[in-house]
């Protein structure tokens, strides 16, 4: 049996992935994989903000940098599982899709959702991150000594 921490860690990972998905992507992957289950709203999609904080000197006392737009919602499947979404930007239909995925991940369909939605998102995200990191790596400076001045 998994302990609470490990369970949270998994959910934390997929919710994080859903929050950063490109516009429309979660809905497209979900709809391609399965029919959407029936649900009722616990909290209809709502647009708001989160104050982003940094730390002085990178490691010191926190300070406020500015806000970021966030959309959140919560829903209950007919089978009782509760799905939450907090995603970046002003995207109500994406929040709905993300909350459905969160709820479905707690049902018997978790395996199918993981395979068709989460793994695809993860693969796309990782490819984009690596492509960018590789472009950065190509701009890394290689120093070489031309002459030394002492003689």
């Amino acid at each position, binding site marked *: 049996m998994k302990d609470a921490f490990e369970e949270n860690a998994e959910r934390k990972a997929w919710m*994080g992935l859903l929050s950063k998905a490109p516009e429309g992507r979660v809905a497209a992957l979900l709809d391609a994989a399965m029919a959407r289950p029936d649900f009722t709203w616990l909290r209809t999609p709502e647009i708001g903000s989160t*104050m982003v904080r940094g730390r002085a000197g990178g490691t010191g*006392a926190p300070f406020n940098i500015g806000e970021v737009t966030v959309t*959140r919602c919560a829903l209950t499947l007919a089978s009782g599982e509760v799905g939450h979404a907090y995603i970046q930007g002003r995207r109500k239909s994406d929040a709905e899709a993300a909350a459905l995925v969160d709820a479905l991940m707690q049902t018997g369909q978790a395996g199918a959702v993981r395979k068709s939605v989460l793994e695809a998102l993860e693969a796309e995200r990782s490819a984009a991150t690596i492509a960018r990191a590789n472009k950065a790596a190509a701009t890394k400076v290689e120093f070489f000594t031309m002459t030394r001045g002492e003689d």
Partner: protein
Amino acid sequence: MYVAVKGGEQAIESAHAWLAEERRGDLNIAELSIAQIREQLKLAVDRVMAEGSLYDPDLAALAIKQSRGDLIEAIFLIRAYRTTLPRFGASEPVDTGAMACDRRISATFKDLPGGQVLGPTFDYTHRLLDFKLAADGETPDAPSRESVPGDVPHVTEFLNREGLIEEAPHDDTPPPDLTREPLEMPADRALRLQALTRADEGFTLGLAYSTQRGYARNHAFVGELRIGKVAVEMDIPELGFAIEIGEVTLTECETVNQFKGSKTEPPQFTRGYGLVFGQSERKAISMALVDRALRWEELGEDNVGAPAQDTEFVLYHADNIQATGFLEHIKLPHYVDFQSELELVRKLRREAGADQVQEAAE
């Protein structure tokens, strides 16, 4: 006496209609889309997000379009929109040590772990107009090289190991928020950093430059400058744990400053800090220099009376929306105010004239 007057409704309506027409410009030229502004005028979008204090590239692009490219007007629109949003909470402080860096350079160490990564920079360009951009030019693909995954350590950590630089010890004091409470003096460093990160870029640059030219000089080196994405994590009460709710691009600048020591501190390097939304290194470096200048008191340095050392002066004049609001209000009707001034001047002149006539008679 207060005199209410009415009028100008028709004129205002016509002015706004003409504004919309001028905004669109020549109808034979294709209209700009929000996505084009977001993708191709990215640094303008970044500035509007930083000074508008709201990270949302699409909204910033819309504001730039609506304001016809007047960035302070765009920032004004974003600030006004921001106040309509319910606040869900505050993030955990972002971990810039885990940044996915597009750029990371140090002016103090040539060979540092992680290396000098230039990123998409204007540096080393010749600042010559590129007429190829005026034609429909294809862009070449940027080269790639296999990268090493993993976090890039901060440069100050190396100096920290020798104890040669002041520490920024971990601290979890909840910061004050100037969007919730009015800015009051004395302002602690957290409040100063919040005011500086959303401060006008030009004002911050001018102040930073003044310190370099000798008005509270603090001998800054760019210890490190990094630009890239960091995850934003927030505690979700209904879940009982924190999740990532998105990611933002940030520019971080850490300066390393000469410090001879004071009554309380040994000779060591001190630090200034800049952290700004988006890719904006001019602003981040400026912020770090001004942050360092404002720290004179806690470091036991002399107040030489320089503008960049005056917290009240800096913080009360750094916000371009406050400044533009007060500055531009003087163009609005002041007919009654001015009428009373006119009366006063006439009265003074009459009195002075009477005196002169008197003097001439004597």
